[in-house]
């Protein structure tokens, strides 16, 4: 039992990072069937935003909270630009958007390298996030708890928007049947744009959170994007529920696998488990029932 609780917390913490990375991705993938390879670079943009904001506002605590808002806007705006310039022109070609956004990711990484330099930069964590707290006899870093809280807030906010607002109703309608939604007078183009804004904005927030875990480099997004994709695949598209369960599930499984083996072997085993899982549920955990033939 002594070994279980720390691993459980490690898994929850890993899962909260995965969830932040994958939440926006799940939203845009569910909405448009688009896999956005530049999502990781939006996270990187959020992380660099934190760095810039901290240069302006000296206090780490204030700048972190400001960064969460600014990071959301930066990520969101980048997403909207991408959607307007490229993705909106490429409907019905989901696999091609995957490649195009990879080209965008390449360019964004180089922009970061040219603007901020290739070496990693660091963001100072505020003092109230320094050190661990004791929870049920396990010492948990405060920064990890902050990320977990941030993930919970993001999920709650997205769930609230989806369930309660007219925008959420439009998004759900487009996810379930795009053509019928369009016929009913919903502007799918505008809905797509707003969804992309929210999804990419969450990527920006995820980037802000990542600055608490380590230094920031141009390839920051790369290291999280594959895992985020896996979460979306396991979770299934369209609903937040799937992403939440998959992110924490994969995080906890990986944490326990690491207990028995090495970190690298745990990754391989996790992938094998995902392939096995897809034998059982090829479309992921949660699927939206639709009446469209596709």
């Amino acid at each position, binding site marked *: 039992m002594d070994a279980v609780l720390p691993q459980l917390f490690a898994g929850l913490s890993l899962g909260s990072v995965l969830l932040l990375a994958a939440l926006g991705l799940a939203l845009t993938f569910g909405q448009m069937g688009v896999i956005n390879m530049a999502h990781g670079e939006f996270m990187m943009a959020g992380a660099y935003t934190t760095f810039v904001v901290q240069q302006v506002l000296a206090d780490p605590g204030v700048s972190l909270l400001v960064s969460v808002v600014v990071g959301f806007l930066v990520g969101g705006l980048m997403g909207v630009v991408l959607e307007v310039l490229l993705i909106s022109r490429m409907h019905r070609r989901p696999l091609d958007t995957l490649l195009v956004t990879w080209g*965008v990711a390449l360019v964004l990484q180089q922009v970061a390298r040219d603007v901020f330099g290739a070496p990693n930069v660091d963001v100072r964590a505020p003092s109230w996030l320094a050190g661990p707290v004791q929870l049920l006899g396990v010492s948990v870093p405060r920064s990890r708890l902050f990320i977990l809280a941030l993930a919970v807030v993001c999920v709650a906010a997205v769930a609230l928007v989806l369930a309660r607002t007219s925008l959420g109703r439009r998004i759900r309608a487009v996810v379930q049947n795009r053509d019928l939604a369009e016929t009913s007078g919903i502007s799918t183009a505008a809905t797509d744009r707003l969804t992309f804004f929210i999804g990419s904005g969450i990527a920006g927030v995820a980037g802000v959170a990542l600055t608490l875990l380590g230094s920031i480099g141009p390839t920051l997004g*790369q290291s999280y994007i594959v895992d985020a994709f896996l979460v979306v695949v396991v979770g299934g598209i369209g609903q937040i529920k799937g992403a939440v369960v998959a992110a924490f599930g994969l995080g906890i499984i990986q944490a326990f696998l690491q207990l028995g083996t090495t970190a690298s072997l745990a990754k391989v085993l996790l992938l094998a488990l995902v392939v096995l899982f897809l034998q059982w549920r090829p479309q992921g955990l949660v699927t939206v029932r639709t009446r469209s033939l596709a």
Partner: protein
Amino acid sequence: MSGGSTTLPRWAAVVLRPGPARTWALAALAALVLLVLAPAVLSDFRLSLLARFLCLAMVAVGIGLAWGQGGMLTLGQGVFFGLGAYIMAMHLKLADAGPGGVPDFMLLYGTGEVPGWWEPMRSPATTVVLVVAVPALLALVLGTAVFRRQVRGAYFAVLSQALAAAFAILLVGQQQTTGGTNGLNGFRSFFGYDLADPVNRRMLYLLAAGTLLVMVLAVRALMRSRYGELLVAVRDQENRVRFLGYDPVRVKVFAYVVAAVFAAIGGALFVPIAGIISPADVGVVPSIGFLVGVAIGGRATLLGPVLGSVVVAWAETGLSESFPSFWTYFQGALFILVVAFLPGGPAQLAGVLRRRRGAGHAPGAGRAGADTDQPAGGGRGRRPDAGGDTADATDTLEDGPGRAATGHGDPPVVAASGPPAAAANDPDHHLAATTERHP
């Protein structure tokens, strides 16, 4: 425009018109350039560089088959490339160490003992078999597991990418037995031939060039057979193929296995030519990098992937040394433009221009011409992979999953050698023909 095509000189007609004559002319030309001209004019250094690019082109040929013809976007070919390369590299290391010897890096980092799973690679014959067998087996198992459950489109792409990530992480993690981040390098001989000898390096180039030519011709033969038609049919209308009594899973798995084997052979030849293999050559980024050349050269053509990947690799080597920053922007921009606006590759450019020009003469054809970045068919499935129970919806006879899931903008320009059936499926041809006939 009318009659314009009939006044072309004979040689121009052979080169410009798709058909068996053009394919053979191009193949002969390629063989001449690769096997005779290049060794004659290029320095040893350049030739060795070209040999390395040809190994990458072998991966591209496989991707052209799996993705261009079969619609399976695989983002993880680095795994198969890496398997072939590492198996070959282990053999070279053991051969250099001599019978019973231990490779140098293992004495430095490891236990000083050769692990059991390295032992089979002491034998040259076993190595050659394993280079093909191990990747083929992995592709067979993974492909069957994934395609049987109708995991496709973006889901398959993500899984293959995760495989590449896991493979690279595994290699880095096993420092003592795989060389970790440094990989395996410092090979002295290749099946008994001294790698420092320029003559042997030239032979190695010829081996790579010959292998590549054989692969291209093999794919051509494959695509002209009944199997090739099935593969294209599965890409466009998987369910219809199933209803006709074929098993789409086997069709797809076969193409995936062939692509894996080609990539592995490319990797195995890459090792003695480049002199190094490391996780940096097989991870997520190089795996997607393989796609760049294929996309830019034209994914559904026969020679497009080869030319595209060689040109891109050459340009990268030339430009990235002097302008590393510029090269990345250029590569990214090129990739975006080609995939977004010329999904068939530059081979498609002529058709697009012709239709644009034709639009001036024939207003009726204008819309079709302007819509080149829209799919010609596949209307219904806007979100092919996203639809709920596609697995259960086997009664969707409509243009649903199959067509749209391939992600093709325009229908494939099936190789220069396209069989008649495939050519007839290609509205591009009809469009172009209609426009040309218009006064």
